Every structure is written in structure tokens, then in C-alpha cells.
């Protein structure tokens, strides 16, 4: 049993971290009353921007400066996802475009953007396979805690991850703290619940919406970065990221808009997502697809449960998806 857990848990965590970034970022955005369905696209853009940065830095160098090797992809990823967030905000906050349509368009755009530049880089690198391998940068990103190996199974389960994994947990805790225990968080929740009330209380609604959405986008983007450089060991191939962005949005609902729950729920989702790899040998592999449905079934189940329970705190922010016009009051 322990042997199974030692193999299973680290892989579940590896799958879960991108989801954790995506869902925490999306939760923060949704708390401002904006449903950003572009999260999948933003994670994609975050990933490819990191890849572009790393590609430009790594190509032609024998050894990498560890600081630059991490900072360049990281900054590229943050800038790329910030720009996506700004674009989304401009369309939905300033121009009051329909949030669902904008978000879906952003996802389509983000995936296209990623595949276009991914394809170009693959051409430039003259690789045999349709992928780019940035193993030196990946080695920096995937560096594990030095003492992990000496702690036996405890080390393998708890300490065998890279810094971005621990950062995800810290960010989830941090966002949770800000939302629930600070003035800023209180004001932000009010903006998402009732922008007119927040406005009357002297809160700058537009600024809160922009800030929350853009920071949310940057957090989500980090999920893409983690996926490429840690989970996929620095190998970018088009469309490999798959439907993780949607899984992240499903997680927001599953965690009833509480980032702190995202920590265990992401890992659980990650586990469900890879469960099919642990099907006992000999079973019909067609069943694999059914296993992959598990996280979505869990989300549906959660939706049903929260609807039955009908507690006001477990509902989405009241003005989620609605544009705010001050003149409407």
C-alpha cells in the first residue's frame, strides 16, 4: 500500500499543482464578479511565454546562470498572463462586453497563440520530434529540496517537489488570508457581491475588478509555467496541456470559492485525473476515458450537493458575470 502511495501521491501532486494555480487565480478573479472562462487560454499563454523566454536564453548556452534561468521564463510568463488579464479586463470591465463570450474567445485565442509560437520554435530548433526540449531550464525549475532524498517515504511524499509547487500552496493560503482577513479582501468580496453597494461605500469598483482579475490571471499563468518546466520536464509540444484549464474552472466551483480548499482539492483532482494510469494490468484500456471523467463527475456532484444545501455562503458571488453600470442605481 505504502509503495502505491509513494508512486501515486507525487504524481497526483504534479498533476494537481497547475490546477491549483489555475483555480486560485480564477477564484480571485471571480471574487471580483468576473467569470473568466479565458483561464485555459491564459494558462496556455503563461506556458508558452515561459517557453519563449527560456528558449531565447537557453539556446546556444552551455551552462545557465541559475538566477537568470529561472527569472527570465518566470517574468515572461507573468507578463504574458498579465497582458491576457488586462485584455480581458479592458473588454469586460471598461467596455462591458459579455464575460462568457469574451472568456471563450480568450481561450481560443490563447491556445492558438501557444500553438503558433510553439510551432515556430519547433521549426527554429530543427528538432526531430514535434516538440521543444528545454532540459537545462527545466532542471533549474524542477530542483528539489536537497534533504528530500534522505527522509525515506516522508521525503518522497512531502518534500520531493520543486519551489513552484510550494509557492502554489503559499499563494493559495495567501489569497485565502487576504480574502477573509483583510480590508482589501472584504472590499473585494463586496465588489463581487454587490458593486452598487461597494460603490456607495466609496470603494473604487473598477480598480478592484482590474487588480483582482489581473493578479488572478498571473497566478493562473504560473500553472502553465509549472506544467511545462516541471511536470513535462521542459518539453513543449502543441496541445499537450489539454483540458487542464477547464478542470481549474471546475475546481473553483468544487471548492465553493475558497482558495484554501483548492490545496487538497487540486491534488485530489490531479489524482483522479491520472488514476487511469494505475488501472491493474489486464483491464480493458477503453475504460481509461471513464476514469478521466472522474474530476468532472465530482464537480457535478459538488454542484448538486451545494444546491441542495443551499447555504448562502456557498453560492457564487452574487453579481458574478454581470457588468456594472453606475448609472443603473
Amino acid at each position, binding site marked *: 500500500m505504502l509503495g502505491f502511495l509513494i508512486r501515486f501521491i507525487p504524481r497526483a501532486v504534479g498533476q494537481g499543482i497547475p490546477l491549483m494555480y489555475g483555480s486560485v487565480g480564477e477564484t480571485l478573479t471571480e471574487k471580483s464578479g468576473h467569470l473568466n472562462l479565458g483561464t485555459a487560454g491564459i494558462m496556455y499563454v503563461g506556458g508558452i511565454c515561459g517557453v519563449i523566454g527560456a528558449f531565447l536564453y537557453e539556446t546556444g548556452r552551455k551552462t545557465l546562470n541559475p538566477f537568470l534561468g529561472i527569472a527570465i521564463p518566470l517574468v515572461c510568463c507573468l507578463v504574458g498572463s498579465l497582458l491576457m488579464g488586462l485584455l480581458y479586463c479592458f473588454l469586460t470591465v471598461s467596455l462591458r462586453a459579455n464575460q462568457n463570450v469574451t472568456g471563450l474567445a480568450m481561450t481560443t485565442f490563447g491556445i492558438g497563440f501557444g500553438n503558433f509560437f510553439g510551432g515556430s520554435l519547433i521549426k527554429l530548433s530543427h528538432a526531430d520530434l514535434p516538440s521543444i526540449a528545454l532540459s537545462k531550464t527545466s532542471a533549474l525549475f524542477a530542483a528539489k529540496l536537497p534533504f528530500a532524498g534522505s527522509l525515506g517515504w516522508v521525503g518522497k511524499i512531502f518534500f520531493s517537489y520543486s519551489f513552484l509547487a510550494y509557492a502554489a500552496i503559499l499563494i493559495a493560503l495567501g489569497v485565502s488570508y487576504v480574502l477573509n482577513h483583510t480590508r482589501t479582501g472584504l472590499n473585494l468580496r463586496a465588489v463581487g457581491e454587490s458593486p452598487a453597494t461597494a460603490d456607495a461605500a466609496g470603494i473604487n469598483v473598477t480598480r478592484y475588478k482590474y487588480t483582482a482579475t489581473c493578479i488572478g490571471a498571473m497566478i493562473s499563468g504560473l500553472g502553465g509555467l509549472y506544467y511545462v518546466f516541471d511536470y513535462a520536464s521542459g518539453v513543449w509540444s502543441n496541445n499537450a496541456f489539454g483540458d487542464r484549464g477547464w478542470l481549474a474552472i471546475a475546481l473553483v466551483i468544487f471548492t465553493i470559492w475558497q482558495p484554501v480548499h483548492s490545496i487538497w482539492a487540486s491534488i485530489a483532482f490531479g489524482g483522479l485525473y491520472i488514476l487511469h494510469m494505475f488501472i491493474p494490468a489486464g483491464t480493458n484500456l477503453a475504460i481509461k476515458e471513464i476514469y478521466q471523467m472522474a474530476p468532472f463527475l465530482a464537480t457535478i456532484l459538488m454542484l448538486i450537493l451545494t444546491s441542495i444545501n443551499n447555504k448562502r455562503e456557498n453560492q457564487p458571488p*452574487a453579481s458574478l458575470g454581470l457588468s456594472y453600470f453606475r448609472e443603473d442605481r
Partner: protein
Amino acid sequence: MEKKEPVLQLKHVTKRFGEVAANEDISLDVYKGEILALLGENGSGKTTLMNLISGIYFPDEGEIYANGKQVVIASPRDAFSLDIGMIHQHFKLVDVLTATENIVLGLEEEGKLDLKKSAARIEEICEKYGFSMDPSKKIYDMSVSEKQTVEIVKVLYRGASLLILDEPTAVLTPQETQTLFGVLRNMKQDGKSVIIITHKLAEVLEISDRVAILRHGRYITSMDTDKVNAQELTDAMVGHAVSLNIERPIPKKPRDRIVVEGLTVKSEDGVVKLQNVGFHARSGEILGIAGVAGNGQKELLEAIAGLQPIESGSIRYLDEDGKEEELVGKDPQAIMELGVSLAFVPEDRLGMGLVGNMDLADNMMLRSFRNGKGIFTDRKAPRELAEQVVEKLEVNTPGIATMVRKLSGGNVQKVLVGREIANAPTVLLTAYAVRGLDIHSSYTIYDLINQQKKSGVAVVYVGEDLDVLLELCDRILVLCDGQVSGIVDARKTDKQEIGFLMTSVGGGTDAQ
């Protein structure tokens, strides 16, 4: 009263909305430690004036002085910083947050958020002024009066010394009103000034030190409360009747069409909206319903049309042959088929009755979409009807394929009323049919209603303008606080009597 320092002075303040002046050349002083009641009919500009003081609107002309210094109040935040706090009629609270969280919302206090400390301060304020409130209770668990308490404490927490309450008692029970008045008196003792907007004369006389009267957006006068009586206040509020010449034929052989007995209706949160209401609506007659807005008019019409759940009482419909049918418990569709037609013009005009994004013809079809063969609807008839309505009522539209929301308010109302009338009703219920219309359009609507009356329809007309009610209707039922305070013959009454009935609960006798 000895001369006191004014805390707030308005000088020649004017606010226009388009062509309409909601406030014109108003000068008003508010003194320290007084309760000033602001009295006026609907649409006399009371709320607009208070919104100017609290930073929601910005005056077009005139000056505002606070504590002797000229100030500019451009936003609610500016008003806060001048220690002015307004408690709106519609509360601005976030449902899923607690009372404390709502109160500290948007404040930039020193240090980190400490809800315990804030709650302690809130308890202190509550104790000082005699409120009772649980700071950790969520808003969605609160009754209307508790929510109002939160709003008032919110304003006090921000250190307001001038409080404006817009019809605070409209949603309260008599006991809650007494508690509120106790609190207001405590505030006065504490040197705070209070402006209270209310329609209820009894409350004005009970709580205020001074009364200021507005009429048609103008400041008329202000009086010391202990030197006036209800009659003088009514006279000043209503002013002199402006004569309107609306045709009023004598009803021909009126017969009972709708008989309402003992009707009681409660709102979702358990507030009694109508209590033991009874009246007869007769064919070929216009029954006017007067009352300050929100005293049960909407609920009454909706109850007849089958849109309101009813606590108790009966609504009977009598047809030509005198056959009776109970309407309570029937669904709106069945009531409509009996010939009861409802044309309710809500404040946002499009909220009920018309679909803004559909064109004229399609809106006509909302009444007739069930007609037609099989699964297909009949589109021809509504199109013809739309053309007729446009022609007959002079609706100003590029064509019948224009979306209704693109029409001006008056034209929207013509479309709505036109459609309801085209249904050949036997009972026509209209509410605020001329709300916001100019004189010409209003008269078109009055003519339409009169035509219906002449053809034997029982018309129930809920109106805001007393002059019009007196000219147009045959009988007038006055509602106050959800109760009938009188049914009077419109030919024999005057505005003073109606105005008095409007503000006295259950007063007067049934004059039919």
C-alpha cells in the same frame, strides 16, 4: 425657537433632469440638534434634494454651505467627510456579509482589519442610542427593520452628525417605528441633526421640530411643528388645484363587476401589504385608487390579476348575466380569459408587460401567441394590431419592426395600454398609466380610458396625481398602509379630503 447655528445651508439650489426641474431654486437651512421633516407629494423633489446633499446627484445651480463654509459634494465620499450620512429607502447592504462587515466596508481605518474591535464599537453605538442589533448576524438573516438599523449604525460609525432618512417608516411596523423614533430622539439629545422624509402627517407631528414643505420641486415654506396642525400641513403640501379639463361622462347603468371582500396580502418577508380591503368595481365606471406610493396599490392590482398569493379574502367576478366567479386561486391565464386586463406601468416601464428587445408586433403577440394553428403561431393578427395601435395612438416609431426599448417612455406606455385595450377587456386595471408622460400623451391615455368606460368596461385607475384622479374618476378609493381609509364620490370630494385620507390609517367611513 432661539436662533441656532445652521449645520447645513442650501442656497438657490436647482437640479434639472433634461427639461424637467426636479428642484428649483430651493433654499433651506438645517440647524444643529433638530429633527426636520421634509413633506411633499410624490414627485415634489424631496428625494432629489436629499440626493444632492448626500452626493448622489450634483446640483446644476446654487450653493451648499456646511458649518458656514461653502462646500462641493460630488460623491457619497465627500458627504461622509462632511459628516453627512443618508439612509436610502432601498438599503445598500451586501447580503452574505455580517452586520459588522457591512458597516466597516470601504472604510480606511488605521491598522489591520479587526472585526472584534469594530463589533465592540458598534455595540457601543447601539447602546448609546438605544438600538438592538447583533453585529455578527448575516444580512440575509435579518428583518427589514434590522437591516435599517444596520444602515443607520453604518452612518453613525462613520461619524455622521447630519442624518438623512428617506421614508424610514414605510417598511416598518408601528412598534418598530416607535423604536426608531426613540433612537432619533436620542440622536437629537446628542446634538445630531436629522432630516426625515415621510408622507405620514401623524409621524411628522410626532417626531419633528420643524417641517419644510416642497411642492412641484419648489420650496414652499417651513413651520415649527408645535405651531401647526395636520390641516395646515395638508393645505401647504397640496397647494391649489390646477384645473384640468378631462371629460367625465356619467356612468350608464353601472353594475358590479368585481367585488373584493376582506382581502389581505402579505409580502414574501411577511409584511402585511393589504389588510382587509373591500370594494366594488362597477361596469362603465372609473374607480380611482389614491394613496402614497407603496401603500398596497401594486399588490391590490396584482391580487386581482392573479399574480399575488392571497392570505385571505375573496375577489369575485360578475359577468353580464350576474353569474359569479371566484378569482382567488385561479391562474392569471384563466383570469385574463374572463376579460380582466392589467396594464401596470412600473417605474422602469419595461419591467412588466413588454419585452424591450422584441419589436412592436412581437410584443402584441405576447397576449395572443396561444392562438394559431397547431404548433405555428399566428403572426398576421399581431402585426395588424401593432399597426392599428401605432396609427390610433400616434405612437412615434420608425415602424412596427422597431425594438420597444428604443422607443421613448411615453410611446412605450402607449404600446402597453393600447395592447391591453385591444384585448376588449371587461375589467381594465391600470397603474401609473401616465407616469412621466407629457400633457399631450397623458390626455391621449385619458381619452382611451374614457372610451373604455363608455363601452361598459370597469376601469380601476391607480394614479399619482390627485388633480387627475379628481377629474377623471367616478369614485376614489384611498389606500393608506394597505388599508382602505375611505371610498369617496369623486364629484363631491376635494383634494384636502383625499390628502387627509391618504395619511390616516383606516380613517373615514365607507361612502359608497
